[in-house]
């Protein structure tokens, strides 16, 4: 069986049509992707780097693909407000596989460019040609599949020296009335000494359908730039996501990536960071709170290709019920990269004997005179602390919640946006209290809270 075949066949049958409505640039890498996929297979559970996740099974579901680019009626900005109080963001929406024009066109955010690929291919053809698909690795079949079927994406460009005052928020919503797979794609170019804070929120409005987001994100951080990318997933048990984030860091750049999963079905997050310039700083953070049958697998790779760089990686999981977590992290220090400081940590809390955590920290160092560490721990809640709290009258459930919240607090405190930090503390509190629905941020309240 090959789950990819149904999508390859779909492409082959619709190739001309797909190419007609896409920018020429996308079609070039599309052909390359098609060649890769001719022999590619999705990894099964147990294969290398997929000890806990079965991608073949995830893609085997019969998802619809919106090849014809049929528009969905609802304008999500009318019903959906991802409500982060006290945070004034420039807000963009994508609904299923399309960026909503009414939501994207009317906003003017100074010199920062945010537009769909279809526009960017006309407005910034050189930038698109220089960077689209250059980081993403087509030998990964999910990345190839994204490149094969993608018809549009979001282009974010901060020119040299421009500091984006307001954070940019991208709300991705699934609301189609059928099972559906989308290929979300972002290309983010942050110029020299430029700065941007980006928050992506993945939501699902219809809990009844199966959705799969197979996304690819490429981030280029030029020298001296600052990039914060917060990636928050708050979907439904029937929503799957395979996400690959590629980062190219130049000299003196400072990149923070924080992936947060609160509610989902199946998620595989790949982070691939190439640190190519001296004095660059990388912060890679992850927080997962999973219960029920949630499955969250993070795979990180940081390659230090230049001397005198810092990277700091911390992933925390809180798993309850039958939740499965996985973390595999690798730090590579290439030859001739002295004075690199790289730290990696993965700490996990299993709140139930049925919850499972797979973890694999790795260091590979080819230079002397570096400081690196890696560590991983899986544990339960501290019994002494629980009893201490109970003797003060704090009930067992409340005590557990406080301890679980405390466990992830330092990852939240790594957020460099105060309003988002406060909001995350609040969302996590609600998550542990069991009162967070996937629509917590939605004014439409189309679904009663659990």
């Amino acid at each position, binding site marked *: 069986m090959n789950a990819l075949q149904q999508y390859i066949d779909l492409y082959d049958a619709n190739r001309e049509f797909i190419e007609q409505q896409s920018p020429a640039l996308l079609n070039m890498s599309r052909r390359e992707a098609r060649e890769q996929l001719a022999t590619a297979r999705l990894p099964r559970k147990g294969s290398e780097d997929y000890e806990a996740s079965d991608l073949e099974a995830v893609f085997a579901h019969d998802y619809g693909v919106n090849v014809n680019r049929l528009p969905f009626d609802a304008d999500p900005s009318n019903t959906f407000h991802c409500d982060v109080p006290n945070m004034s963001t420039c807000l963009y929406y994508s609904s299923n596989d399309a960026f909503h024009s009414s939501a994207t066109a009317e906003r003017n955010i100074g010199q920062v460019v945010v537009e769909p690929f279809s526009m960017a291919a006309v407005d910034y053809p050189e930038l698109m040609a220089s960077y689209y698909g250059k980081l993403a690795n087509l030998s990964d079949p999910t990345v190839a599949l994204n490149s094969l079927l993608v018809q549009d994406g979001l282009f974010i460009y901060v020119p040299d020296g421009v500091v984006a005052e307001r954070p940019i928020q991208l709300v991705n919503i699934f609301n189609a009335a059928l099972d559906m797979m989308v290929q979300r794609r972002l290309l983010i170019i942050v110029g020299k000494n430029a700065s941007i804070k980006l928050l992506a929120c993945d939501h699902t409005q219809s809990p009844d359908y199966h959705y799969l987001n197979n996304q690819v994100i490429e981030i280029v951080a030029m020298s001296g730039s600052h990039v914060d990318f917060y990636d928050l997933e708050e979907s439904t048990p029937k929503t799957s996501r395979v996400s690959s984030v590629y980062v190219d860091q130049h000299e003196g750049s400072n990149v923070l990536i924080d992936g947060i999963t609160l509610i989902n079905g199946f998620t595989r997050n790949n982070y691939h960071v190439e640190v190519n310039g001296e004095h660059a700083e990388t912060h890679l953070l992850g927080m997962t709170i999973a219960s029920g049958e949630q499955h969250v697998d993070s795979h990180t790779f940081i390659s230090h290709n230049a001397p005198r760089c810092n990277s700091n990686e911390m992933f925390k999981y809180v798993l309850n019920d039958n939740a499965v977590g996985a973390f595999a992290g690798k730090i590579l220090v290439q030859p001739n990269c002295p004075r690199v400081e790289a730290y990696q940590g993965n700490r996990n809390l299993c709140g139930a004997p049925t919850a499972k955590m797979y973890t694999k920290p790795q260091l590979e160092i080819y230079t002397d005179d570096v400081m690196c560490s890696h560590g991983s721990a899986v544990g339960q809640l*501290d*019994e*002494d*602390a629980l*009893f*201490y*709290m*109970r*003797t*003060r*009258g*704090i*009930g*067992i459930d*409340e005590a557990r919640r*406080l*301890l679980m*919240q*405390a*466990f992830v*607090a*330092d990852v939240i405190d790594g957020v460099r946006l105060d309003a988002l930090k406060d909001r995350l503390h609040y969302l996590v509190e609600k998550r542990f209290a069991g009162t967070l629905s996937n629509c917590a941020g939605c004014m439409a309240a189309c679904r009663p809270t659990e």
Partner: protein
Amino acid sequence: MLIIKDLQASIEDKQILKGINLTVKPGEVHAIMGPNGSGKSTLSAVLTGNPAYTVTGGSVEFYGKDLLALSPEDRAHEGLFLSFQYPVEIPGVSMVNFMRTALNEKRKYFGQEPLSAADFLKLMREKRSIVQLDNKLASRAVNEGFSGGEKKRNEIFQMAMLEPKLSILDETDSGLDIDALRIVASGVNTLKSKENATIVITHYQRLLDYIKPDFVHVLYKGRIVMSAGPELALELEDKGYDWIKEQVDSQQ
């Protein structure tokens, strides 16, 4: 208020308490002394419901209720408090959040509305002064990075906040210098009233100079083997436990 009858308890199949009998009335201060390993801390753990211990016999009545049938949190709500010998550090949980949750859980138990933020902070300020606990400590994580003295002062501060009917002070004097001991003892004495009672577990007479007991009990091999007035503490300080041990061991 507290009637302990023939209380027996074990940990991992090792019998520690072998039949404790003790009655405490409102307004009283009881001191429980005894050599290491006699079961003093086990008694406090069993009374507060530490799940590590198993009660194998006997009964404990607290204001007419079967104490042993209550969860640790409900025992706290009913008015039982333990000042830990080794207070637990809880990184990531602030003292403010911890105390507010504790207080509001108790109010919920009695069907009361949660305390407003302003009233709560006022109460914190007021009670903090009893043990001269710094405001900075109150805003930090529970016991994290506190010195030995600060931890014990923090225990008495929590006691002041929760206003228990019966407080058990387990080796509250251990790890305290003279000044800290005085502050902690004066805090305990300030909180003392005709309605509440205290059980002081200690090795030394020293603490009893500050917190005057009405009764002194000696615990040895899981039983209370001797009870008398405060003069017994002085005698123990003078002669040690050996004469009691000999007396008990020869009887067996």
